[in-house]
């Protein structure tokens, strides 16, 4: 139950289209229940009872507080790191040390993961004032994006594959 949404949750990030049922078996290293078919569809969202809503708001409050602490830490320590990343690292540490059980944030993280694209749309709307520039230079920008993505994909893949072969792993 704990490892439940590991893949499906992230799969929902950033406007991923629907995903069919996942492959069947699970290896030992992957979070246990990840073998369930992961269907990313709004209909998969269970109906919430009043109690669920209260718990959800509390969870969101907790995540919000961690985020605030993250920003505070970053400002205090003068590290050029986004505060929300600091908050994420903080939660990760709390989970690893067992201070916070993972089920405490199960509800809210699933919900936020499902609707993550919604939260950065308002930033993208800022393109309104940059539209002309983007259109006129679009092909060159696309070239840069495609080439750099291609280099990144190959480098990451080659290095990881080579090193895991050295180690004798899959």
């Amino acid at each position, binding site marked *: 139950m704990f490892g439940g949404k590991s893949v499906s949750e992230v799969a929902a990030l950033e406007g991923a289209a629907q995903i069919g049922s996942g492959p069947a078996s699970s290896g030992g290293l992957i979070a246990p229940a990840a073998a369930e078919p992961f269907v990313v569809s709004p209909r998969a969202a269970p109906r919430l009872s009043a109690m669920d809503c209260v718990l959800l708001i509390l969870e*969101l409050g907790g995540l*919000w507080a961690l985020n605030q602490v*993250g920003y505070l830490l970053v400002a205090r320590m003068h590290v050029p790191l986004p505060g*929300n990343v600091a908050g994420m690292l903080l939660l990760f540490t709390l989970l690893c040390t067992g201070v916070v059980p*993972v089920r405490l944030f199960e509800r809210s993280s699933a919900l936020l993961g499902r609707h993550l694209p919604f939260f950065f749309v308002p930033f993208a709307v800022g393109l309104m004032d940059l539209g002309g520039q983007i259109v006129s230079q679009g092909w060159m*920008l696309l070239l840069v994006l495609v080439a750099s993505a291609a280099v*990144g994909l190959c480098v990451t893949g080659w290095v990881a594959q080579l090193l895991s072969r050295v180690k004798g792993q899959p």
Partner: protein
Amino acid sequence: MKLALTLYGIAVTTAMYAVSRRLSRRWPSPFTSPVFFTTLATVLVLALSRVHLSDYAQAKEILTFLLGPATVALALPLYRNRRLLTANLVPALAGLIAGAIGTMVTAVALAKALGFSRTIVASISIKSVTAPVAVELAGIIQADPALTVAFVIVTGMVGVMLGPWLLDRAGIRSPLARGLALGTISHGQGTAQAALESELSGAIASIALGIAAVFTSLAAPRLLPYL
């Protein structure tokens, strides 16, 4: 008046998002994906109703209130799959770091060679970081958040459409390496694609997405002045 405009901005964005969810369910495609469609439709409606970007600022503030908590919640997939990471620590981290730096250097070098402005170069340097982190990082490295989001989303699409074919061509067959590459370079969209390939790929991609975000957040402000 100000309040009315803010409420209008919120209503338009939310409505377009609801529409995009339905559309992407009926006709799944990158063009009906929530980010692409909602952004385009919102911009169109706002422009047609003569609402200026400055009038949208308050709405943006309210709508993105949960972005921070959503980013913090990325710690969960990272935690759930941590054993997969520790079991493959050296190949995974080395691949991720090499790829994250490689893609950043290539993007910056090409953008500079093509004569793009400083703002565009800075924005394009962090295009492989997951969007909620990228918009925050944009503020730190003097990039434009709107441009950054656009670059991030296009990079996600490129990874999904081109990634699997390119990895085949490059002879990268290990599910670990493929998932790692897709998650590191094409963040959330890449992770969804990796999850389609295999469970292992999806899990490692979800780790890669989180760690790449942390790594690039630390590296970009330090590397950029030298590139």
